[in-house]
């Protein structure tokens, strides 16, 4: 069990997808202006990441690896994710309108979000089993959410700041991201220390 928690905590803190691995930077910079959009987007990402892993893991194990077709992973994964997102959108619209209203608008954006494809490929590269993959994906999604929420707070403070003219706009946002990322480096070694690995 400790090993699973280590994977989860690593994905959330020390190996944060946005701030340490640079995956999903577009939504991180683009949708983090307001707290509620940031939350909606990251909830959709957690959902799709978990679902994509649950679907691609068996496909990879029982279809691709079994038939020596590993080289098709990239194509198959991105198509599965794209189809899955469409399907989820339709199903949510039909059966769960409240959830659709909350997450629906973010779903089309997620197809081309590199964090989702990234987590699926990383699970394969790391050789995780099903449970480990799920923990890693949920952790990655939660890490994304944490980064988004923290950063939307930082950005709301940034708006009332007197920024030098040449740094206004995107540059100061990136520098703020750099400082948030620096603070996440403080977690280095935390997982090993906490769980006594």
């Amino acid at each position, binding site marked *: 069990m400790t090993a699973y928690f280590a994977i989860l905590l690593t994905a959330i803190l020390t190996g944060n997808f946005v701030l340490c691995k640079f995956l999903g930077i577009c939504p991180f910079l683009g949708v983090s202006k307001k707290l509620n959009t940031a939350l909606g987007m990251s909830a959709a990402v957690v959902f799709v990441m978990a679902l994509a892993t649950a679907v691609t893991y068996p496909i990879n194990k029982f279809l691709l690896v079994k038939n020596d077709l590993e080289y098709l992973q990239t194509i198959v994964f991105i198509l599965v994710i794209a189809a899955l997102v469409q399907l989820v959108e339709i199903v949510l619209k039909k059966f769960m309108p409240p959830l659709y209203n909350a997450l629906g608008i973010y779903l089309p954006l997620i*197809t081309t979000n590199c964090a989702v494809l990234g987590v699926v*490929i990383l699970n394969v590269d790391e050789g995780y089993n099903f449970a480990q993959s799920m923990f890693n994906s949920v952790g990655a999604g939660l890490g994304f959410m944490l980064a988004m929420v923290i950063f939307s707070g930082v950005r709301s403070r940034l708006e009332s700041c007197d920024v030098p003219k040449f740094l206004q706009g995107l540059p100061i946002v990136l520098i703020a991201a750099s400082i948030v990322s620096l603070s996440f480096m403080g977690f280095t070694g935390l997982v090993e220390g906490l769980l006594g690995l």
Partner: protein
Amino acid sequence: MAEKKVSLGKEFTKGLIKENPVLRLVLGTCPTLAVSTSVVNALGMGVSAMIVLICSNIVISLLRKVIPSKVRIPVYIVVIASFVTIVQMLVKAFVPALDAALGVYLPLIVVNCIILGRAEAFAGKHSVLASAVDGVGMGIGFTLALCCMAAIREVLGAGTFLAGAQDLLVLFGNNVLNGFNGFTLIKEGSALSPMTVFILAPGGFFTFGLLMACANRLAERSGKPKAELKGCEACPMAGSCSIRADGGACEDGKEEASA
């Protein structure tokens, strides 16, 4: 004919500076931040993405009259993913060191918004030749921006420049550079030590922010608007996306000004 040539030249040069995909259009930020830890990695990533971009631009432009517009995004993704797989296999076979260094970011070229963005904004609407030229220009622009950032980060963060250049050219033999394998600017054991933070994640954001500020300053001097996050504009999902109405990131999409 003469007119056509002029416009081709324009398609080529616009990607380098005026519409540089990274610094002006703010596309492809993930690989830019992730692989710019050394110039050699940046070059490898830039060239790989450029090959995918040119090939997919050509194929998509060839198929632009056949692809029904309703399913064009999945079709584009399949075309791009196929070329990424080819490039991935080539890199694995001929430049294994680069494959190890780029890791997951090599297959992630599939979701690089530069490539899908150019397919949607340009290749799907223009002739094959123009699309290929656009791909070359945008590819070189991407590589230039990556190398620019990587040069700053590598020199400050590791104290080297072009380290591992030999690994990139291993295909042409083991001694093609006469034993040259990058400059070491800060020798081990000297009084100076490199600022490691620059090759770590925070340094990436910081360098990118400052480069963006420089690009904005230069653009302002020549009377152009500064780069804003226009991800959504080039984003192929823009049509079905309602975040822009929600006051999220996107300004109102302005039409692609290249005709």
